[in-house]
Each structure stands twice: as C-alpha cells, then as structure tokens.
C-alpha cells in the first residue's frame, strides 16, 4: 500500500513538466519510505537481537552440556579400559605364576593365548640377557625393544609391531624376577572395550594418547601432539584433564574431553563433532528467525497501513499546495479527521480560502493598476508629444519675432509633427469680420484666403463662436490626392479674445479624439501667446524706436532751450551788471538794490539752466566722462578754497580730514570736484552756524568721501527724494546754488561706479557720503 502510494507520488512528480514549481516537493516521495523503513527497523532490529542472543545462549548451554557429558563419558571409558586391562593383566599374572612353577613356557603361552583371545601374541623375555625365551602368536623379533615394556610393566604401552614400521600394538608387560611376560593386545578388542559411548551421538570417537602426547591408533601414529592445534588447548600436561573445542581430524569442529589414567599410563580423549549436538540449538534458531521474519512482515504490513494513513493526507496537502503554488487557488484538501492532521487540513483550507480572497482582490487590484498605468502611459505619451511640440513652438515663438515667419514655422511644425494633411493658421482682421489665411503647412490656402466669420466654413464658425469643432466625413478635397478623413478648427484665444483659428486636416479617421483635442488646444494657446508676443514685440520695438526719437528730440530741445534762454539772459545779466558797475552813470541805493536782484536772479536762472542741461545729458548718457590719475589733494584744496569763499559771511567752521598720503584715485577729476563742491555748497546752504567737515577715508578698493554739517538736517520724508531731480529746491536764494546739485551728484557718482547716500538727524545735521572705486570705473574712458 505504501509502495503504491510512493509509486503514485513518483509518477506524479516525474510527470510534472515544470520542475522548479515543484522543487520544494522533492521530499514528498521520501516521507512514506522513511516512515516504512523506520517502522521495519523498529520491528526487525529488536527481534533480530533477541534471536541472536537466544541462539547464542542455547548454543552455550548445549556446549556446556556436551562438555560435561564428554567428561562423564571419558571417566566411564577410563573405568572400562582399566577393567578390561586389569583382566588381561590378571591373565598374564596367572600365566606367570604357572611359569614360575616350571610349566613349559611355550605350552603355557599357547594355552594362555587360547584362553584369552585379547592377546594376539605373547612373548617371554629374559631381561638380563635381553633374549626371547618363548613366543607365540605374533612372532617377536629382535627389533622390539622389550626393555621399554619392562620399564612400564603393569601399564598400557605401545610397541612397534614387527610386521611394518607404521603399526603400533598395545601391550602389557608382567615382570617378575628377571623375566618379563609381554602380552600384545588386539586393537579391535581394545577398541571395542572403549568404543561404547553411552549418551553420545553418532561420530563420537575415542582416542588414546601416550605420555608423550602422541595419539595412537591401530593405523599407527596419529598427529603428533605438537602439531595438533587442539592438543595444547585442553592438555594442560599429559596428566591433566579438561574439555576443549578444536577443529577435528577432517577440519570439522569438534569438542573433546581428556582424562589421564595414571593406572594405565595413557590419556583418553573422547571427541564429538559439535554439530551433532548443536542440532536442537539450530532448530531453535531457525524457529526464532522464522518468527522474526513473520513478525517483521506483519510489522511491515501494519507500518504500511499506518504510514499510508499518515502520509496520504500529507500527500493530499502537498498536492493541494502544489496546485495552489501553480496558481489554482480553488483547491481544497478533502480530509475530515479529528486528529492533528485534520486540524492541519482545516487550517490549510482556511488559509487557502483567505489566500483565494486576497489573491482575488490582488488580481483585481493588479488589473486596476495595470489599467491605470496604461492610461497614464497613454497620457504621458501624449504629454511628452505635447511637451516636445510645445517646447518647439515655444522655442520658435521666442526665437522668431516676425509674426509671418513665426506662423509659417509653427504651421509647418505642427503639420509635420502630427503627420497631418495640412495645418493652417487664420487670423482675424482689424474689423473682426474676416478670418484671413496667414500660414499653412501646405504653403497655400486650401480654402478661400479670406473666410467670413460666422460664415458656413468650419473656420468661420469657430472664429465666431470660439469653441473648437471637429468635422468627420469623407471629404474629398478638390485637387488633392489623399482624402481628408476629418478636420478640426481650434480657436486661438487670448484672454477670451479670439485672435484667429488653427485649422487642421487629417487623413486618419481616428485623429482629433479627446486627448488630441487637449494637445491641440494647448498648442493653440501657445500659438495665441506667441502671436501676442510677436505683436507686443512689434509694438515694443516701435515704442523703443519712438522713445529713442523722443530722447533725441528732448536732448535737442533742451540744448535749443538752453541756448534760447541764454540769449536773453545774456542781456539781463550783462546789462544789469553794466549798470551796477555804473558804466551808464551813478545809481541810487534803491536802483542798485533792484539791479542786484535782477542780476542775481539772472545768474540763478542761468545756474538752473546749466544744471538742467547737465542733468538731462547725464540722463541721456551723453555727458562726457574721462578718467585719469587724480591729484586728490589739489582738488580738495580747490574745493576748500571755494567753500571758504561761500562761508565768508557765516559763522561756520570748515574742517578737512584727509589721510596722509591721500588715497590715489583713477577717475574723472573734474566730476569728482563737481560732486564734492556740490555737497559742500549744499552743506553751506543749510548751515548758518556751526561746522562743516570734509572727510576722506580709504576702505578696501574704494575711497569714501563724506561731508558732514551741523545744519538743520533733513526730514525723513525728504531724504527719500533728496537725490531726485530738484528735490531740495527751496526757491534758492543762495548764491548760484541750483536745486539740481544733489541730483547731478548722484548721477555722476553712479556713473563713476560709486554710491551716494545721506544720513541725517533733524536739528543735529546731515552727512552726505559717497564712495568711488580706486580703479577705473567700467566704461569710463581714460583721458589720453
């Protein structure tokens, strides 16, 4: 059963086409086998051990029994042999008595032999002469050493028979006085006397051993004791006794018992082949082995059943799991049991059900995600296309300023990028009643050049209503080779104002879908912006041109005005001065005062005109500048001298703080003087009492020049626009100081690459500071 299950599993496993899917299931075939083997081992090993020990014990017992039996037998045999031997010895002693009494020795020997058939021969030997006196039976020869028999009279001795060299004959010697009566014994009768082996089975052998350890037999000398493996095993000396196991005559294992008979002078061995007595043990062993096999078979059968009971649900579980691994989540384990496997199956089924639910929702999710991804992909494809074309349109829009060229390029671009039959751009004219063809990928208008807005044409409709429209029909354009499957008009709108229409024709019926429309709308928006940009650019260019013209006009105007104003001022200042000098005659005090007012106002006006002219020149960037190495000390001296003159009538103290040596400057010296002077004049103007301080300091790479006064200070709101044009103009009753001084200074300083600022506190004073780079300012031409 288990084998069938294993075979089934193997068949199942090997029939699988996708090995990796079942790679973890390689263990499946081994489970039943493992269990079966384990069961069999559990059954057979203890039984085998039991059988082995039982057999061993039985054998040992039978050996012991045999040993003691052999010992008993050998004692009995010694008794038998002794009795038999003593009877023969008695016969000899009787014969000897008769011979002593003078009976004829020859006759006596014959008579004795006749009486005792055990004697095969009798010999009377005279020991002193060493001669045979009488003999009967086996003829005695001189070769027989009767002396050894004499030395051992009364014992069983073996003599070499005169007949052949190999034959030994047992003999008995009876000695009296100088005579020795030797009886040669019959082997057959001797052996008969000892052959009876009661209690021993077939094959039992009795052997006689000489004192020298030589086994003797009728056939002659048997194995010498020294060479016999068995002999030393139990012969603890010729006079010992014992039992031993050893390989017998034919190599068959035998057991033998040995006993030394001191009376006879020989040892007796009784041997029994071991197998003869082991039969019952072997029978028992066979029985045990048979029982073991039977038990093993039964165990195997039971094990198979149990294994099947265990493995079948596991295999079912495994198979189900395998199916599930393949993706078939509808599998269920058909096991209804109450044990742990049943619990496992229920849990497994539950798990499978959960997996099924999870997997189901996962599949749904995956499908959903995939759909989303595809959608996103499609969108991103459109997006990329739109982006690239938009980028191209943007590039064109930014690189091409001319409207015509721009539209031409864009139309061609769109026509080519979307592989359209044509892409055209129409723009509304000034009246807004006509859409006029401007550019197209075909190069020429495919419709009328001018289309009526709100007319029957697609372009006209879209131009009127501002919504994009698609027309799908089999429209065969006259004179065109390929049919137009669909056409679309997209309004070019900017801030809800319709500028024109983008008109597209395609040969593919599937074009101008929703996604396409979005792309084209975006493009249309961009084109609208580009059109607007181009138009704005045109306007801007025109404006700049006009502004430039205006600047020139303004500059010219200022120069002319300045000139025109100077001419009357020439008379006002000149003649008033002439009169003040009394060249025209003496003046009254009142006349003088009036004339001075006229003269001063004229001078002031002149100053204003000069400043205005200069300021405008600075603004226009036409004021000349030139840089050179500046002698700062000289400039400062000049400025201080001039300022000293200005404060002559005021209680103002002038101080100057210049590092020695003075910083070297490479700039426009005239302009520098102008600025310092303007700041000093300004300070003088607003300081009636106190001090004015001119300070020069060199910071890294720049010279910082500041003019501090203790004047009225400047309100915060004024500070912001103090450098603006005419910011501090207050009617200007100061001598010659125009209101443009600070404004001019700011522009000059900036032109020289520096900065100017003011710090002020009302009632305390103001500090005007400006910086100039020590190096030539960029763009400032060096004075040759």
């Amino acid at each position: 059963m288990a084998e069938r299950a294993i075979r089934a599993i193997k068949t199942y496993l090997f029939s699988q086409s996708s090995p990796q899917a079942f790679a973890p299931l390689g263990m499946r075939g081994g489970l039943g086998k493992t269990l079966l083997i384990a069961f069999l081992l559990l059954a057979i090993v203890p039984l085998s051990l039991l059988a082995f020990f039982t057999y061993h014990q039985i054998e040992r017992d039978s050996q012991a029994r045999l040993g003691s039996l052999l010992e008993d037998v050998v004692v009995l045999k010694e008794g038998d042999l002794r009795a038999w031997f003593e009877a023969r010895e008695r016969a000899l002693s009787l014969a000897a008595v008769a011979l002593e009494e003078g009976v004829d020795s020859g006759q006596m020997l014959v008579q004795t032999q006749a009486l005792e058939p055990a004697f095969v021969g009798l010999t009377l030997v005279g020991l002193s002469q060493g001669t045979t006196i009488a003999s009967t039976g086996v003829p005695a020869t001189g070769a027989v050493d009767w002396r050894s028999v004499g030395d051992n009279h009364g014992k069983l001795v073996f003599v070499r028979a005169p007949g052949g060299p190999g034959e030994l004959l047992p003999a008995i010697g009876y000695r009296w006085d100088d005579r020795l009566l030797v009886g040669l014994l019959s082997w057959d009768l001797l052996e008969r006397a000892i052959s009876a082996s009661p209690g021993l089975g077939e094959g039992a052998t009795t052997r006689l051993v000489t004192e020298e350890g030589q086994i003797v037999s009728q056939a002659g000398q048997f194995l010498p004791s020294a060479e016999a493996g068995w002999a030393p095993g139990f012969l603890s000396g010729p006079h010992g006794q014992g039992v031993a196991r050893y390989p017998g005559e034919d190599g068959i294992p035998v057991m033998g018992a040995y006993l030394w008979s001191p009376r006879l002078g020989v040892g007796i061995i009784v041997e029994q082949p071991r197998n003869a007595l082991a039969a019952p043990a072997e029978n028992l062993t066979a029985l045990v082995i048979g029982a073991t096999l039977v038990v093993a078979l039964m165990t195997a059968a039971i094990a198979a059943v149990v294994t099947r009971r265990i493995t079948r649900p596991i295999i079912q579980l495994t198979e189900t799991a395998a199916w599930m691994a393949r993706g078939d989540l509808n599998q269920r384990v058909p096991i209804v049991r109450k044990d742990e496997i049943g619990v496992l199956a229920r849990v497994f089924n539950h798990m499978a059900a959960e997996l099924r639910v999870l997997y189901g929702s996962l599949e749904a999710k995956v499908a959903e995600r995939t759909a989303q991804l595809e959608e996103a992909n499609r969108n991103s494809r459109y997006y990329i296309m739109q982006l690239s074309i938009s980028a191209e349109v943007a590039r064109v829009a930014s690189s091409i300023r001319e409207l015509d060229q721009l539209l031409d390029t864009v139309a061609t671009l769109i026509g080519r990028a979307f592989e359209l039959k044509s892409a055209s751009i129409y723009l509304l004219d000034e009246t807004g009643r006509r859409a006029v063809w401007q550019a197209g990928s075909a190069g020429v208008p495919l419709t009328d050049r001018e289309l009526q807005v709100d007319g029957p044409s697609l372009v006209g409709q879209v131009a009127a209503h501002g919504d994009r429209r698609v027309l799908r029909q089999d429209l065969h354009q006259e004179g065109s080779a390929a049919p137009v499957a669909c056409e679309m008009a997209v309004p070019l709108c900017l801030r809800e104002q319709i500028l024109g229409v983008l008109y597209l024709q395609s040969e593919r019926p599937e074009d101008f879908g929703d996604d396409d429309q979005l792309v084209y709308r975006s493009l249309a928006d961009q084109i609208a912006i580009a059109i607007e940009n181009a138009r704005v650019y045109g306007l801007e260019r025109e404006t700049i041109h006009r502004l430039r013209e205006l600047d020139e006009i303004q500059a010219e105007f200022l120069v002319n005005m300045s000139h025109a104003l100077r001419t009357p001022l020439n008379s006002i200042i000149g003649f008033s001065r002439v009169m003040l000098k009394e060249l025209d005659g003496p003046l009254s005090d009142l006349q003088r005062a009036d004339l001075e007012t006229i003269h001063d106002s004229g001078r002031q006006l002149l100053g204003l005109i000069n400043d205005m002219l200069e300021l405008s020149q600075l603004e226009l960037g036409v004021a000349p500048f030139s840089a050179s190495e500046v002698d700062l000390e000289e400039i400062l001296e000049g400025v201080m001298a001039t300022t000293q003159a200005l404060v002559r009538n005021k209680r103002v103290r002038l101080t100057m703080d210049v590092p020695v040596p003075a910083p070297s400057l490479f700039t426009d010296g005239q302009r520098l003087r102008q600025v310092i002077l303007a700041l000093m004049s300004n300070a003088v103007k607003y300081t009636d009492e106190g001090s004015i301080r001119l300070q020069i300091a060199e910071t890294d790479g720049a010279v910082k020049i500041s003019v501090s006064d203790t004047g009225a200070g400047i309100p915060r709101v004024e500070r912001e626009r103090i450098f603006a044009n005419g910011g501090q103009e207050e009617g200007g009753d100061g001598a010659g100081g125009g209101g443009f001084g600070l404004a001019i200074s700011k522009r000059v300083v900036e032109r020289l690459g520096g900065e100017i600022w003011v710090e002020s506190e009302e009632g305390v004073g103001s500090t005007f500071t400006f910086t100039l780079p020590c190096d030539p300012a960029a763009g400032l031409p060096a004075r040759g």
Partner: protein
Amino acid sequence: MAQNLGDVNVLIVEDSVRNYALLARLLSFMGVKQTEWRRSGWQVLEFARDVLPQVDLILLDIHLPEEDGYKVLARLREDGRFRDTRVVAVTADVSDVNLSRAKAVGFDGFLAKPINVDLFPDQIRRILSGELVWDLG
C-alpha cells in the same frame, strides 16, 4: 598788433541785436572805437573789407542763421584777408564738446554767453595780446 584799443577794429558777428549792443557797449567802455556788426558769416566775407581797413578781432557767434560759426571760421581762414585776425567764439552753447571743437578748428578763444561783464575787458585784452582765452562761464 595794435595794443592801443582805440585803433583796434572789432567785428561782431551776432544774430541778436541785444547781444551785439552789450558787446559793443563793453568794447566802447574799454576804449575800442571801431566796432562793426554783421548778422552772418556771409556778410562778413562780403562786406567786412569794404567798411573796415583791417579787422583785428572778430567775436563770432556759433549759433547763426544760414551757416554756423564753424563754417564761417573755415571760410575766414581760407580768405587771406583775415590771416592775422583773431577770431573768438562767443556762444551760449557752453558744452565741453563745443569748447573742444572750437579749440580743434582754430578759434583763438572761447567766451561763454552770458558774457561775464567783470571779466570781459581783461579777456579781450589778453586775446588781443595773442593769448588764447577759454572761458566756459
């Protein structure tokens, strides 16, 4: 050159009669007796010699109708009769550019308008004595 201002002949080329009047007045205060007035360069060339035996100084306005002072100067310089005549630009165009140009084309002086009445006599004397006077006002 005549240092006696009474013998000096001065020609004033000026399109404004008031400017001429001022200059003429200042010159007369200085003692100059011969002062002629012309409105344009053309008139100078056409009539100058007919009226004056010689011209020592010409006060030439730059901003003139028809041709400007530079052109007039160029023609005066071409004319041998004015070889020794000092020609001074008297102009309301007081830009550096104009001053530089005046120097470059060979004026003997540059007086800015409005005329500085206080400085004028000295400037004229210096010019007549051969100095170059450049006054931007």
